[in-house]
């Protein structure tokens, strides 16, 4: 039997680890790498340990009373545990991949430290029930993201890092104002005490500023493609495991679990999402930088998640949650593959690559599997989440918006296929390159295979998401 302390383990092992890791790095780099991976895995395992309690309907709570509404508690319900497990699992694979990728660069101690802090803040945010603490973890993640995007310390990468920081923090400040609005309206920051209220529109708008800027949705998206200057495991972390999923998670937490949105938002948010989906997909078709293409793809796919979550139907919300998982696995894999390609060819321009399948066979297959999953082609996991989101949106009575998303799905097929065919087929452009290190290749293979298994054994994640949706108690 596990106690509520397991939640604290899940949050604070990576955070404390972030402090320890640089010192370990002074002693031995191998030790540092392994312990970083172990810290993330502990986080994953402890999140998994909290799952049975969440499924029994008695979520673990660990709380501390403080004056002035600052008392906080960590609360491990099914939604939080699902999100924590998804993030920490993908993050663990990314950390493992980093062993090979990052070994030649300076500032590795800082790198591992920041990655761990990043993951720890994600865990903290996921389990927190106090709005102020959600905001705090949110900002910690922004700082980590700022350091990591600027990892190479070149002038233009620092500018891009600043941009990412300013946009997400700018959004977060609006969100904080929204949280204060909630306090004014209800007198508490504690989400456990806030169930089923309605919110004034101005509060919703302020909070949406924060969510949309973190989740890189139009018109606050432009930092995300620029963040591609970061090392590939970092972009993978941003896109798949932590950063952009924070916004989606907070949306689900606030607007599905706690507050009831007005009817107008169930049309407004899908419209914003639809515009975001199409514009980003269009930009992905035009771009030539492999990492920017995949970044635009994230923006486009996040819109599908928002569409599902905002549909207000059971199947749509469940689809949106499944989409978070499937997208994490597949998009993480795509970025890691892009990292291998960039590492081998020293370019990110797809016009200069072709025929790499001959030299990078495992990467090619893993890329294909992840790309098919993002496209929503069975037997990969993305199929079910895409279908459920589409179905949910249709059931919410807005067939025109659904039709726009079908066009978005077609564009997804086009841009991913374009990258895939351009990079891996045709005349061989780089005859003397090698496959990535074994850590890197194993990581992408694991993500590709997991995307496949998530589709064939959809019943396992689906049971969890269905449980979450049913425990919302709305339908």
């Amino acid at each position, binding site marked *: 039997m596990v106690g509520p302390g397991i939640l604290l383990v899940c949050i604070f092992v990576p955070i404390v680890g972030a402090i320890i890791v640089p010192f370990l790095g002074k002693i031995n780099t191998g030790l540092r790498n392994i312990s970083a991976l172990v810290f993330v895995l502990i986080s994953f395992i402890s999140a998994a340990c909290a799952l049975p309690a969440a499924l029994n309907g008695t979520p673990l709570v660990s709380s501390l009373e403080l004056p002035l509404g600052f008392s906080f508690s960590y609360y491990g319900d099914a939604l939080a545990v699902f999100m924590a497990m998804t993030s920490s699992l993908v993050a663990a694979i990314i950390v493992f991949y980093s062993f090979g990728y990052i070994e030649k660069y300076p500032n590795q101690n800082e790198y591992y430290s920041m990655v761990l802090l990043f993951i720890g803040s994600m865990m903290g945010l996921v389990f927190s029930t106090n709005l102020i603490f959600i905001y705090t973890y949110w900002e910690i993640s922004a700082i980590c993201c700022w350091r990591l995007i600027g990892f190479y310390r070149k002038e233009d990468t620092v500018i891009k890092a600043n*941009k990412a920081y300013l*946009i997400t923090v700018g959004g977060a400040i609006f969100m904080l104002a929204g949280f204060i609005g909630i306090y004014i309206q209800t007198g508490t920051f504690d989400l456990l005490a806030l169930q089923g209220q309605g919110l004034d529109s101005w509060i919703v708008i302020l909070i949406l500023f924060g969510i949309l800027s973190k989740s890189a949705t*139009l*018109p606050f*998206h*432009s*930092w995300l493609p620029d963040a591609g200057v970061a090392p590939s495991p970092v972009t993978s972390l941003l896109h798949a495991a932590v950063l952009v999923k924070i916004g989606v998670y907070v949306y689900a937490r606030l607007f599905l679990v706690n507050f009831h949105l007005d009817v107008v938002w169930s049309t407004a948010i899908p419209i914003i999402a639809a515009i975001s989906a*199409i*514009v*980003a*997909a*269009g*930009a992905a*078709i*035009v*771009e030539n930088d492999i990492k920017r293409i995949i970044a*635009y793809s994230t923006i486009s796919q996040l819109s599908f998640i928002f569409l599902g979550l905002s549909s207000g139907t*059971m*199947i749509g919300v*469940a689809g949106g949650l499944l989409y978070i998982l499937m997208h994490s696995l597949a998009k993480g894999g795509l970025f890691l593959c892009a990292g291998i390609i960039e590492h081998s060819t020293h370019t990110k321009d797809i016009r200069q690559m072709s*025929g790499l*399948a*001959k030299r990078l066979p495992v990467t090619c297959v893993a890329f294909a599997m992840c790309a*098919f999953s993002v*496209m929503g*082609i*069975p*037997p990969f996991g993305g*199929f*079910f989440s*895409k*279908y*459920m989101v*589409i*179905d949910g949106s*249709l*059931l919410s009575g807005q*067939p025109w918006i*659904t*039709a726009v998303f*079908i066009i978005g*799905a*077609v*564009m997804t*097929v*086009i841009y991913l*296929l*374009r990258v895939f*065919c351009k990079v*891996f*087929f*045709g*005349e061989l452009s780089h005859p003397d390159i090698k496959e990535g290190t074994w850590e890197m290749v194993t990581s992408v293979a694991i993500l590709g295979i997991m995307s496949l298994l998530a589709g064939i054994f*959809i*019943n396992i994640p*689906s*049971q969890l998401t*269905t449980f979450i949706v049913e425990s919302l108690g709305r339908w």
Partner: protein
Amino acid sequence: MFNALNSLITSGSGVNLLIIMIIVPALLALITIIIPKRSYFGRAILFLIATVVNLLFAISLFVGEEMTMLIPWADFGINLSLRVYDFSQFMVLAAACFAFLVALYSISFMRNKSYSGKFFFYYLITLALVNGALLANNLVVMLFFWEGLLVTLFGMTIIGNAKRPAVAMKALILNGVADLLLMFGIAITAMQAGTMAMDMIVDIPMEGLGIVGFVCMMLGAIGKAGSMPFHSWIPDAAEQAPLPFMAILPAALEKMLGIYLLVRVCLTFYDFTPGSTLSIVVMAIGAITLVLAVAMALIQKDMKKLLSYHAISQVGYMILGIGTALPVGIVGGIFHMINHVIYKCCLFLTAGSVEKQAGTTDLNKISGLGRFMPITAICFIIAALSISGVPPFNGFFSKELIFDAALESGVIFYIAAILGAFLTAASFLKLGHAAFFGPVKLPEDVREKDMMEAPGAMLLPMIVLAAFCIFFGVGNAIPLSIIQPLLGDALGGANFAGWPHSTVLVLISIGVLLLAVLNHYLGYRRTGEGIKAVDHIHYLPGLHQVYNCAEKHYFDPYNILMLLFKFISYLCFAIDRCINWIYDVLFVKTIQGATTAMKNFNSGSTSRYIAWMFTGMAFVLMMFILLL
């Protein structure tokens, strides 16, 4: 024996035969790819055994009872629900037969090909997915297997051609569009029907969203079957993909799936009635497909490419027949589908023999092969007579049913159908004449004394298929006795077996065939070469220019689609750049401007500070006075 097999598997272990149909080919596919590359023989034998096992299971399903199974899968009604009943029994059996015959052919054809292992792998996965799609009793589960074929389609088109991925990309995008439309259609259908269980969905009314749902599902179905406007990858793939792929996917299994779904959508899911607007739309798609595709087939100078256009054109007949919504049309459509698979498979296999022995299928380089490959030539002739609709081969009987239905639905459709028949006959006269008759011509690197008949493993499938062309023609009562009950009450007790009922239509059809022969004879007399026998049509003023444009892919729906998306994308990209400009330039400039302006206030000059002080004091004073 098969019942015994059936009960052996189902009893005790608790495993259902239905799920075995999907799992066994997939598992054997995985084993096939694990076997080391150098033991081609081991791989090939395992591959063949897999298709034989699949065939045995399919037979035992066919002789068995109606069966269902249900495993909970994803929630919200997405259960792994499978069902076998008369229609799917028949389809699964047919698919298994073709899969076995083409597999037998492939192991001989694929020897010495570097990608043979991958080909076998994709082939078996395809088989598993096709079985799944035919047996699925849940719309989403069907879509799962159906759309999964995209992966194997892409894989099979890319393996022989890793240097030129454009065709594979085209195939995947066109089919992907069709499948996403199908996804939309299925979501609407499930919503309208209130269930995803396919046996519970009956006669959804055609109004409002129902129309959209019907159109999307119909487009998805005909897209899989390779109808216009989702067709244009097929001729391209014919040039580059391995030939057994052409014989098994675009010519056989995809047609069967597409028509299977189209029949189910038209016959049961939706309230689809003769004479309705949508019926006319479906018939129009069929008629346009059949005429335009056969017109393109007529001018082809490559055997595989010519056949691939016929694979498109013939699906037009099936859609036309089913689109009439008349019992005779639907029976004709299904019967034509099965006949088509038989003769088109056979034709592709003969083309494969030619390619294997002569090294090319370019009609400019080969001629008079009949004397080296007599059995191939005979099989070709039988299949060509079938596709041209010559009695008493199987194509004749199914075409007559469709002609009958088309005439009842509108003269224009009948005219399109017989025009198609004329062009089909003309192009096969040209093809047969050019490839197998006339003076001997071989590619430069092939010597006459090395030319010989294809190996036995390749001949056997062709002979079997050719025999079926005759058998399903002469004994058409047997296939029709399986097909007709599928319609249930809609059939109204009619029986279309035996000689066609309308003698007038038969006479017109025979007249059209004679006209085609006359046309060929005149063309041959004019130019002296079989390959140029239809040049007088090709170079007809006016038509010639249209043909030129078509050959340059100006009418290719794929190019139009991509152009459209390119336009949208550049627009989107411009929007994206504008937003980016706001962040990167506008914000930065505004803030820089503001700071510069504020700097001027703090220039360090004492006099200016004093001036500011007095201004401020004056302002405060003003406020006081005004407030008082």
